[in-house]
C-alpha cells in the first residue's frame, strides 16, 4: 500500500507541476499587456511602466513563474488587475458557492444513480429496467443548461416554489442556502446520474453473472445479502472511476450552470475576468480547478485500494 501511495503521490505532484507550467505559459503568451489595457490607450509610457512594476510584470518569465507558484503554495494568489483586491479573497468568497454546488450535485447524482442502477440490474429485462434505460438515455442527451432553464420556467416562474436565480449567502441559514442551490444542483446532477446509473447497472450485471454470487446464493444468503456483501462491493471499481471523473465535469459544468442561475461562484468570476482581461484571476481559478480534479482522481485511486484489497499489492 505504501509503495502504491507513493507512486500515485509522485504522479500527482508531476501532473500538478506540468499543469501549472502549461497554464502559466498559455496565459503568458497572451497578446496585449494587462497594464496598458487597465490604463487605457491614452496612458503615459512611464505610468504603464510603473504599473507593470507594481503588478510584477517587469520580472522575467521564469522567476515570475516561481513567484506565482510559491505564492499559490502560501495561499497568495496575487492581486486582481481590475479590482486591486487579493485574488485569494475573491476566489475564497466564490468557492463557498461553487464547491457546495458541485458536492450537492455529486450527492444527488449518487443518490439517484445507485438505486436506479441496482433496480435495473436486479430486474434485468423488466419494465423497470426498460424505464431506467430510457430515462437515462434522455438524461445523457439533454443539455443541462437547457434543463436548468426549463426548471426555472416551471418551478420558479410558473409555480413560484424557488427563486429564479441568485444566492442569498450561507449566513441566511443552511436550508435557505441549500434551497437556492437545489435547482442548479439537480440540473448539474441529471446527466451525471444518468451515466452513473448505466455504469452501475452494467457493472452489477457483470458481477451478478460470476460464480461467487451463485455460491453465495447457494450458501443460503438472500438476494439482498448477496447484493450488499458480494455484488455491490465488486461492482464498485468502475462506479468509483466514473464518480471521480464526474467531479471534474461537475466543477466545469458548474461554471455554465452558475450563469443560468446567476450564482456568484467561480464560473461567473472567470467570465467576468475574461471580459475584463483580469488574467491573473483566470490563471488562478483554472489552476485551482485543475488542482481539484487531480486531487480527486488521486483520492479515487486511493479508494480503489480500500474497496479492493487486491489492488494494494500492485504498484
Amino acid at each position: 500500500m505504501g509503495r502504491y501511495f507513493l507512486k500515485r503521490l509522485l504522479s500527482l505532484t508531476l501532473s500538478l507541476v506540468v499543469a501549472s507550467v502549461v497554464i502559466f505559459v498559455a496565459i503568458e503568451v497572451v497578446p496585449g499587456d494587462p497594464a496598458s489595457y487597465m490604463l487605457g490607450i491614452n496612458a503615459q509610457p512611464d505610468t504603464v511602466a510603473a504599473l507593470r512594476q507594481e503588478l510584477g510584470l517587469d520580472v522575467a518569465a521564469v522567476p515570475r513563474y516561481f513567484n506565482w507558484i510559491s505564492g499559490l503554495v502560501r495561499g497568495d494568489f496575487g492581486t486582481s488587475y481590475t479590482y486591486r483586491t487579493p485574488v485569494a479573497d475573491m476566489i475564497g468568497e466564490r468557492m463557498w458557492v461553487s464547491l457546495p454546488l458541485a458536492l450537492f450535485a455529486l450527492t444527488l447524482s449518487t443518490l439517484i444513480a445507485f438505486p436506479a442502477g441496482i433496480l435495473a440490474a436486479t430486474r434485468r429485462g423488466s419494465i423497470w429496467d426498460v424505464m431506467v434505460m430510457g430515462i437515462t438515455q434522455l438524461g445523457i442527451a439533454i443539455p443541462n443548461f437547457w434543463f436548468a432553464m426549463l426548471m426555472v420556467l416551471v418551478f420558479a416562474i410558473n409555480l413560484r416554489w424557488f427563486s429564479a436565480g441568485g444566492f442569498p449567502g450561507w449566513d441566511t441559514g443552511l436550508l435557505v442556502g441549500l434551497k437556492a442551490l437545489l435547482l442548479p444542483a439537480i440540473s448539474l446532477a441529471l446527466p451525471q446520474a444518468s451515466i452513473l446509473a448505466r455504469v452501475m447497472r452494467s457493472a452489477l450485471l457483470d458481477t451478478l453473472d460470476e460464480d461467487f454470487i451463485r455460491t453465495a446464493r447457494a450458501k443460503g444468503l438472500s438476494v439482498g445479502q448477496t447484493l450488499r456483501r458480494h455484488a455491490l462491493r465488486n461492482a464498485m471499481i468502475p462506479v468509483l472511476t466514473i464518480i471521480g471523473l464526474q467531479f471534474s465535469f461537475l466543477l466545469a459544468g458548474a461554471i455554465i450552470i452558475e450563469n443560468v442561475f446567476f450564482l456568484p461562484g467561480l464560473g461567473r468570476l472567470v467570465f467576468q475576468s475574461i471580459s475584463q482581461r483580469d488574467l491573473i484571476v483566470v490563471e488562478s481559478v483554472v489552476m485551482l480547478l485543475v488542482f481539484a480534479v487531480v486531487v480527486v482522481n488521486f483520492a479515487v485511486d486511493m479508494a480503489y485500494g480500500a474497496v479492493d484489497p487486491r489492488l494494494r499489492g500492485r504498484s
Partner: protein
Amino acid sequence: MVDQPMQQEHAPGGWLRAALSSRNLLLGLALSLVFVGAALLSFLWTPFDVTKLDIPNKLMTPSATHWFGTDHFGRDIFSMIMVGARTSIAVALVAVSIGMALGVPLGLAAAARSGGWLDEIIMRANDLVFAFPALLIAIMITAIFGPSALNAIIAIGIFNVPVFARITRGSALALWGRDYVLSARVSGKGAVRISAEHILPNIANLLIVQGTIQFSLGILAEAGLSYVGLGAQPPIPSWGRMLADSQTMISFAPHLAMFPGFSILFTVLGLNLMGDGLRDIFDPRIRRGRG
C-alpha cells in the same frame, strides 16, 4: 470501458441484416439524418434569411408562415435552427477529427512501445489533458485569443485527443499478443506497418463507435460553449447562442427556448442511439443487454 477489440462475427450480408433489425440504430440514424439533412439543406435553402431583421413580426408564436415562430428580432426560428445545425455539426465533426487524427496515432505508438518511455510519456500527457475539462481548455483559449467557433473546435478537439489515444492503446495492446501480429513480426514487418496494416483495421469498429459518442458530446460541448458566449459569435446562428438569447424572455416567449433545446436533445439522442446500435452490431458479446 471496452479494452478488448471487438469481435467481427458477421458475414458481409449479415451486417446489413443486423443493422436493419437494430431499432436503436435505425431510430438514431433517422434522427441524425434529419439534422444533418437540415444542415446540408440550409446551404441551398432556408424558409427565411436568418440575417434579415423583421422587428414588426418579432416574438411570434409558431404559425403556418413561421413554423417555429420568430425571435426578438423577428428572425425565423426554423431557418435559424437549420443554419444552427450547420454550426453544431461542423464544430463537433472537426473536433472529433482532430481528436482521432492525433489520438489514434499516439495510442498506436504507445501500444507498439508498451511499457517503454514513449508509452509512459504519451499516457502521462493524456492524464494531464484529462485534468483539464473541455470547458477549462476553452476558457484558457478564449482568455488568450478571444471567443470564436474555431477556438471552440480547438478546445473540444484537444479534449478528444486523450479519449482516442486511450481507447486505441487499450484495444491495440490486446491485439499485439495475437498470433497474426506475431507472424507479421516474424515476417519482418516493423511496428508502423503492423499498426497500420493489422492493428488499425481491427480496431476501426471500436473507433467508429467512440467517434459517434464523441460527436454527440461535441454537440453538447459546442452548445454549452456558445451558451456562455465562448463559441460561435453572432450573427452566426448557433443553438447554444439561441438558448442564451431566449433566457431572459422565457417567461413570455418560451417557444424561443423550446426549439433549439429540442434540436440539441434529439441530435445528441440520435447519435447516442446510433452509437449503441453500432456497438451492438460490432460486438455481439454485449448484445445481451449489457449496454
